[in-house]
């Protein structure tokens, strides 16, 4: 399996405060990886550093090319979709406009309409609401919209920041099922940051555990799930 | 929203020191105070007059700073309160022969009332809408002062002449010098009161509104009351500055209080550093002296020179004099270490 994203010695700073202390990990193509950790461990910062949304040093390579010097929008244009924490919905635009914005950098205009239809297949609830202002959707629906918007980029890699945050358990199950489907059927490599470790480990094939800005454990998701420390700290049994 | 909050959180230079510092240290304060007390003894009367105006505008900038830096509201209408203060003083002195010193508290109280009342509708507005509302007030003020039925009191377009007071108790001071020290005393009083206000419980309440209005109200801060009070206090201080200005210039007329004055005061606040009270005097110096300097460089292009100088200031120190002070402070700290 080829490596899709390779991160080496990533350090990130908020002003004077260092949030990541030399993080290294890699994602192989087609994998679904989860990044686990407690509050403040640096999960969100890791995703933001990959997209250059926070001051950072270290080497980030995407499909073999270094991307550390690119602006956020140019990282995205390479095919890296980032679903941020809090979803980043364009609340005063319609659902359909949000989806179109996801594809705004694509040259193949003809396929966009078809792709929007595909998103409606994945997330039927969006179809019912396509003329509605996105701000009027419920939290779960907005999360669906955020994922759909990211997929409209036809990304090679998708970064998701706590997609389960604030959602009802049933909705989370549904969302994760769809993420698995996207990973298998559309061959999108996925990196998902989660606090809901149990669900994330069920879904993922690879897992990393991060503590205070450092990777402390990595491996096959099943092995990680069976690890004594992980079970105690993150799974609670 | 926004403005003042960003000033505090985004400044890279601000991080090393207490973030909410709105004042100077004791040592620096004493040096500045000494300079303000001693300089007039060695300069000509015209310079003393300019220094008096410097203090007066500094008061007006300070007032705006309390409003914007303190409560996060934004006003382009300060010239209106300045005008009201000036006219109250002028009318009391010339029509009722009230002692000049006694007119100032009256000007302050009248303007406090006006500001408090104006703060009521302003409560529902924020950001640009509030800017427009205050802007309208500033535009309307000269026209209102010219109104026919007020002419008996205001002197209409002609305005009123104000007599300059002599030094009391036969002190051997020229009128200009006496007025300067009088203004200095008033300014120090107001400055100290303002610093204490912002450090008090009410000051913290104001700043909590500035930083997050919703959170503030959730913590039990009476947002409406404090916002209108901030308007009132700001207007009151501006009114006192206006009264002093009327005495110093010896003249009030509607066209002395146009929107240009309000814009100048705003520029003064930005140059001094939003929310940093000592910066008010730096900002005041900028709006008094820079137009003169610009005129000196080029008569025809004085506006352009002023604009370029203003651009230079905001490029080099986007957070105004406050940023300079912080850099100096850090340098001093480094020197001490070595």
């Amino acid at each position: 399996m080829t490596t899709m994203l390779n991160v080496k010695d990533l350090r990130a700073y908020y002003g004077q405060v260092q949030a990541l202390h030399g993080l290294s990990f890699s994602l192989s193509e087609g994998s679904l990886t989860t990044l686990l950790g407690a509050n403040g461990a640096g999960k969100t910062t890791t995703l933001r550093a990959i997209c250059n949304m926070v001051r950072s040093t270290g080497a980030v390579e995407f499909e073999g090319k270094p991307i550390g010097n690119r602006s956020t929008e140019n990282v995205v244009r390479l095919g890296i979709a980032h679903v941020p924490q809090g979803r980043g919905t364009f609340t005063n635009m319609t659902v359909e406009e949000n989806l179109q914005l996801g594809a705004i950098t694509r040259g193949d205009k003809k396929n966009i309409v078809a792709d929007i239809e595909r998103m409606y297949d994945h997330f039927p609830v969006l179809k019912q609401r396509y003329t509605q202002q996105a701000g009027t959707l419920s939290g779960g629906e907005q999360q669906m919209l955020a994922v759909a918007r990211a997929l409209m980029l036809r990304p090679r890699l998708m970064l998701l920041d706590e997609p389960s945050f604030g959602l009802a358990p049933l909705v989370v199950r549904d969302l994760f099922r769809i993420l698995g489907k996207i990973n298998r059927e559309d061959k999108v490599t996925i990196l998902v940051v989660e606090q809901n470790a149990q669900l994330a480990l069920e879904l993922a094939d690879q897992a990393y555990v991060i503590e205070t800005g450092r990777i402390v454990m990595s491996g096959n998701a099943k092995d990680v799930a069976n690890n004594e420390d992980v079970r105690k700290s993150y799974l609670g049994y | 929203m926004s403005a003042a909050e960003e000033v505090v959180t985004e400044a890279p230079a601000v991080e090393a020191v207490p973030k909410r510092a709105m004042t100077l240290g004791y040592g620096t304060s004493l040096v500045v105070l000494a300079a303000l007390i001693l300089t007039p003894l060695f300069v000509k009367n015209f310079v003393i007059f300019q220094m008096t105006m410097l203090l007066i505008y500094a008061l007006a900038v300070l007032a705006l700073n309390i409003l914007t830096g303190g409560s996060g509201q934004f006003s382009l209408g300060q010239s209106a309160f300045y005008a009201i203060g000036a006219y109250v003083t002028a009318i009391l002195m010339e029509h009722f022969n009230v002692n000049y010193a006694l007119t100032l508290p009256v000007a302050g109280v009248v303007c406090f009332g006006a500001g408090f009342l104006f703060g009521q509708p302003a409560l529902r507005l924020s950001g640009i809408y509030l800017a427009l509302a205050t802007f309208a007030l500033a535009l309307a003020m000269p026209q209102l002062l010219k109104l026919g039925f007020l002419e008996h009191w205001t002197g209409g377009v002609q305005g009123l002449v104000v007599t300059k007071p002599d030094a009391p108790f036969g002190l051997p001071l020229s009128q200009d010098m006496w007025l300067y020290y009088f203004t200095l005393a008033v300014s120090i009083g107001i400055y100290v009161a303002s610093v204490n206000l912002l450090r008090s419980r009410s000051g913290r309440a104001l700043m909590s509104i500035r930083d997050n209005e919703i959170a503030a109200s959730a913590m039990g801060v009476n947002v409406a009351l404090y916002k209108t009070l901030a308007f009132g206090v700001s207007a009151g201080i501006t009114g006192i500055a206006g009264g002093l200005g009327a005495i110093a210039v010896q003249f009030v007329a509607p066209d002395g209080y146009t929107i240009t004055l309000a814009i100048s005061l705003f520029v003064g606040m930005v140059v001094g550093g939003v929310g940093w009270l000592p910066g008010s005097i730096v900002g005041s110096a900028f709006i008094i002296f820079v137009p003169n300097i610009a005129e000196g460089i080029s008569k025809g292009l004085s506006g352009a020179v002023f604009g370029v100088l203003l651009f230079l200031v905001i490029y080099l120190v986007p957070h105004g004099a406050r940023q300079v002070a912080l850099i100096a402070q850090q340098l001093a700290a480094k020197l001490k270490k070595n």
Partner: protein
Amino acid sequence: MELFANQVLAGIATGAIYACMALAVVMIYQAIDHLNFAQGEMAMFSTFMSWQMMQWGVPYWGAFILTVILSFAGGILIERLLFKPLAKAPVLTNVAGFIALFAIVNSVAGLIWDFTIKQYPTPFGSSPFLGSQLISTHQAGMVGVTLLLLAGLYFFFQFTRIGLAMRAAASLPESARLVGINTSWMIALGWGMASAIGAIAGMLIAPVVFLEPNMMGGVLIYGFASAVLGGLSSPLGAVIGGFLVGVFENLAGTYIPGVGNELKLPIALALIITVLVVKPAGLFGRPIVKRV
């Protein structure tokens, strides 16, 4: 009744001026989330450029189109050179930048073209429109151009990808970057478009108020007021706001005793503030809903 109808008509005629300027205001507000205090001066400068071209013998429409193009480029240039470096500075610092730009443009225009009043031609003629003495063909033409501009902007924002991208960049810059939009250039583009629309407004207004460096001062205030009244997020609202302000102002001058010319503006503004107190997002603006 006839007086009333006439005043309304005259109000619409002046309202066209405000509406035109208000469109430029909404444009820049969409791009940078602020009111640009120097916008009127930029429009004045553009108008002077077109006047200069006509003095050199360029025909009206040639000068018109050239000026719009030059203003578009000039707006982008100003943003790149002067305001991009301020992107991370506090908001109020940016406002001070607008004030500085105002002083510079006004002063330079005064130096090049001096402060005497100049006649400015109109392509529509100035005979009475449809036999009414209150509205001239020029003013009718202005209403027409304003409506055309409005339609054009509506199409641009609703149906083009770049219009959508601009709206996205204005409403949520970070999310916009995350879908790959270069937000910095969207701002520059907004400046360019606002400057171009301002130029059109200036060239239409100049025949009415005459050409001189201070011609836009009052107009810009009315433009702000109209845009705010209509709702800063809505081009249609801005245009309607412009006509409403024009009509208000005329009616107040006619029917409220003691108002006269001097107090027209304060009264119009007071009325607008009253409207805002009741409807803080303007008549046609989208209310901003915040989730805590």
